[in-house]
């Protein structure tokens, strides 16, 4: 169902005030930096730290290793992990994107997502890949091969991505790599919203790194802290990158871990993680209150930036540089902090390190010493200036309306904060088959205009037990307005063998994916700008699991009653009651009567 879309012109948005410009430029410049150095050398890693409001800290790790496609084809792996490489070759996978995510990004207070959302996934596990295949069926069989192999590699239940959880997006995803020399690629996409990401997924992830988490920034990655984060996502992206003329292609594998740590929570020692109430003398009381007394304390909201250092935040020190990163140039600055220039940062290490100020002093990068621990210490400090975070292009929230286990309606509220420019985006829903949407109830309303924001719709309805719903909408949301998308759905009742053990918890519905078409990625490459809502919990009506036998017996009884009653009438013949008496000499009673008669005659006869 494709209605032709009107194309809207797009102007890049001038960002807010001067400070904002400054901070934003810093961020922009920084990211460009990464992409420049991309194709440069074979292994590259970097950690970007950025303090966020409400004493949160964004730490985004990024590792990239290249392999020339020639040596890749000869199975001659240097930095590229062999285990993954062989899987890709076996499944004819040309480009792979794998995500493990937990928690949610709080866009209201943390601003724009790292990597513009291009390196994060929905809650749980998300996987999409471009496979080379002659036909759809072949592509799907290779897809199954890939998911099974990856589930073994990452200790995740990726093998549960079956036909009902797989879709073939048409508008939402574009290949990041250049695929000049490969034909008929198929894009397949699958999600596992219920999958709980945990340390057993981190370990194989680190194993793929050349330094295996023993040195370099990856030595900071500790399961306990990582999964105590308020938001974290691990991503693996494999794509071919070619030169201008399509020659000297390299296969680039990018691994990144982004997490938002709560500084107060992470600084707690591991042996005493319980947030006991602080002793009263450690709490800053508001003495201006009239009722302030030694037993009454109105807590003051701390305005100072909290002090922290790498060791207590990540639970372990940074064990020097990974020797595989090249010694000088941009690639050597592997740890960067994005703070206002006035923030005091002391780097303490025994080895020698190099500090460089870039991006108009809002980013400080450090070249790590080799072989000796490195730590950064930021003391508590009252700040006069702050970095203004880039506002995200869209805010999206999705929820289920209505109650009861029979039907409901999905409501997605998408807000465009920009005062000047409209945003065009693709909204992708991938729903399980037992959640049956009614497309004729789909309504999209914009509070500022009455025009229909939907420009193009792609819909593939679900088939029971065979395929899930796949809905893609291309929509245009005007400046500074809110778009409300609603549609009704019905819940199917499943066979009792199809329910999970915790049937009364409900089923998870995968997050909706929003891809921004109009706004160019600030990274300046073709990664795109993405946004994901939270996943939903869908309670289904449950049968009584304890009584299949009773049900079978009772239903059969009712049917037998009807059948027996009717056919009893049909096959038998009526006679008068007393006639029955008359011709009674049949069956047991007749026999008995005969016996009695015989007895009597014998008695009388004697």
């Amino acid at each position, binding site marked *: *169902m494709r209605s032709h879309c009107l194309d809207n012109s797009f102007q890049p948005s001038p960002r807010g005030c001067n400070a904002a410009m400054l901070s934003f430029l810093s961020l922009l410049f920084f990211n460009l930096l990464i992409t420049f150095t991309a194709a440069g050398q074979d292994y590259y890693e970097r950690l970007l730290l950025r303090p966020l409001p409400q004493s949160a800290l964004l730490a985004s790790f990024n590792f990239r290793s290249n392999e020339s496609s020639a040596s890749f084809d000869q199975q001659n792996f240097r930095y590229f992990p062999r285990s993954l490489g062989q899987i890709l070759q076996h499944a004819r996978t040309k480009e792979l994107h794998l995500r493990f995510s937990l928690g949610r990004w709080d866009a209201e207070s943390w601003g724009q997502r790292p990597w513009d959302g291009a390196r994060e996934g929905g809650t749980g596990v998300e996987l999409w890949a471009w496979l080379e295949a002659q036909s759809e069926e072949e592509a799907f069989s290779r897809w199954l091969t890939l998911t099974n192999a990856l589930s073994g590699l990452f200790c995740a239940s990726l093998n549960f991505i079956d036909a009902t959880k797989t879709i073939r997006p048409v508008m939402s995803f574009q290949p990041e790599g250049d695929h000049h020399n490969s034909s008929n690629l198929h894009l397949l996409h699958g999600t596992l919203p219920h999958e709980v990401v945990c340390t057993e997924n981190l370990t194989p992830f680190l194993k793929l790194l050349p330094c295996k988490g023993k040195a370099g920034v990856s030595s900071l990655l500790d399961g306990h802290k990582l999964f105590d984060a308020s938001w974290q996502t691990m991503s693996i992206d494999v794509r071919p990158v070619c030169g201008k003329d399509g020659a000297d292609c390299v296969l680039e594998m990018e691994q990144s871990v982004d997490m938002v740590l709560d500084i107060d929570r992470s600084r707690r020692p591991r042996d005493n993680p319980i947030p006991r109430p602080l002793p009263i003398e450690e709490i800053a009381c508001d003495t201006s209150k009239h009722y302030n007394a030694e037993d009454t304390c109105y807590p003051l909201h701390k305005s100072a930036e909290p002090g922290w250092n790498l060791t207590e935040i990540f639970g372990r020190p940074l064990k020097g540089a990974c020797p595989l990163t090249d010694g000088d140039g941009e690639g050597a600055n592997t740890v960067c902090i994005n703070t206002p220039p006035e923030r005091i940062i002391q780097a303490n290490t025994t080895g020698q390190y190099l500090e460089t100020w870039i991006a108009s002093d809002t980013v400080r990068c450090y070249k790590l010493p080799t072989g000796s621990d490195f730590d950064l210490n930021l003391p508590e400090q009252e700040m006069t200036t702050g970095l203004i975070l880039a506002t995200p292009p869209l805010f999206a929230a999705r929820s289920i309306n209505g*109650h*009861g*286990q*029979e*039907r409901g309606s999905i409501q997605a509220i998408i807000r465009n904060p920009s005062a000047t420019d409209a945003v065009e985006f693709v909204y992708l829903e991938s729903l399980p*088959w037992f959640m*049956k949407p*009614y*497309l*004729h109830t789909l309504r999209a309303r914009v509070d500022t205009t009455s025009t229909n924001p939907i420009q193009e719709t792609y*819909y*593939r*309805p*679900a*088939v*029971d*037990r065979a395929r899930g719903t796949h809905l893609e909408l291309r929509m245009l949301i005007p400046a500074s307005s809110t778009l409300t998308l609603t549609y009704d759905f*019905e819940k*199917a*009742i*499943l*066979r*009792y*063998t199809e329910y999970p053990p915790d049937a009364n918890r409900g089923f998870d519905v995968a997050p909706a994916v929003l891809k921004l078409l109009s706004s160019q990625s600030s990274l300046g490459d073709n990664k795109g700008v993405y946004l994901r809502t939270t996943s939903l919990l869908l309670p289904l*009506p*449950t*049968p*009584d699991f304890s*009584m*299949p036998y009773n*049900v*079978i017996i*009772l*239903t059969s009884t*009712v*049917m037998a*009653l*009807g*059948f027996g*009653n*009717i*056919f*009893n*009438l*049909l*096959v*038998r*013949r*009526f*006679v*008068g*009651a*007393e006639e*029955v008496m008359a011709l009674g000499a049949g069956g047991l009673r007749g026999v008995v009567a005969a016996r009695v008669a015989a007895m009597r005659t014998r008695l009388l006869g004697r």
Partner: protein
Amino acid sequence: MPIDQQKALLFGAAAAVRLLLFTAFPSLPNLLTGRVEISTPVTSFKRLQEGVFLYTHNVSPYDGGVFHQAPLLLPLFSLLPNPAYYPFATNLLYTIVDLLGANALMHIAESGQSATPRLFKSSRKELRWSSIAIGAGFLFNPFTITTCIARPTSALTNLFILLAMAKASQGAGSTFVLALSVASYLAMHPILLFPPLLVLCYDVRATKSKSAPNPLAFTAFHVLSLVVALGGLLYLSALLTGSWEFLGATYGVRLLLPDLTPNVGLWWYFFTEMFDSFREFFLGVFWLHVVSYVPGLTIRLRKQPLFVAVTLTGIFAVFTPYPSIADGTLYLSLVPLFRHLFPLMRYTFLASSTILYASFIGPAFYYLWIYAGSGNANFFYAITLVWSLGLSVIVGDSLYAALRDELDVERPELRGKEVKRI
């Protein structure tokens, strides 16, 4: 003529009631459409709307798990204005459908085939209700009204079943075959009504023309025409949708029961709880069970074909995979044709109060299961059992009465005596 005045009055009143309900409570239709007792996955109006929407947007409605209804409904309902904005046309359509059904029912009543078929004269034939009363019983049956408000396509099926019966009882062979083929095209199971109605049609034709037509030729002709009609309808649908995949999505679903949405029937919970390995076996058994009634009744009650057809509708209302109260109301409004059997029926009060109980407690239990969450599925399941039991009791009881009536004619000396079955 007074009879026509009465009829006009009746139809006017019925139409007024329906349109009033439609307009006075605009939210009522959608509320009732959502009730599982009224609209099943294969008849629901909401699913029909979805199908029409997809059809008008060039997506095949049958390439999905939502729409399971006959293809020819799509162009029909896509002609009507969107009921979400202009519901009047649809409401009017369904009101007219009910009136036509009532009209057909009254024709059946007037034909007198119920009490005095060709080969059999009931001993109580003077005991009958006027066609007006029977029509009123149909039009003002609360079940009928709720069905009409909820707008399931089973209303159309009922109409065509009634038409087929009416035409058969008037001996109009071709129209009867046409109506029946439409009914079975819409809902598949009405095709089981063909044998008794064919016999009925034959009897009527025989009475009309003094010389009875040759049975074989008669049967062959009508079977052939039924095949032709059905084939034509199916072929038309194939042309319309461009492929034959609608067969699996409509009749396949009725046969194999992939959608286990609750309804008032016996199948859904049985196959929810059934073990996977036995599912196909029991599907076969259940369908065989439904079909088995047709030959038995038709042969045993050869003399009263109309009664056989009516009893079969009652059996459909209980034992088909996706029954709704619409099927029940069809049967319950056909039973008054056999007014002369009522004195012989034994459990009328029992059965009818059972049905009343079920229709009050059913929604309450469904609420407890689905919304309050304080009851579980067994609550509603138990009520569907009771409902089916009540209906099957009426069916069996009326059958007993009919046979007893035959006996009274065969052996007048037994009239009114205690009888036994051997």
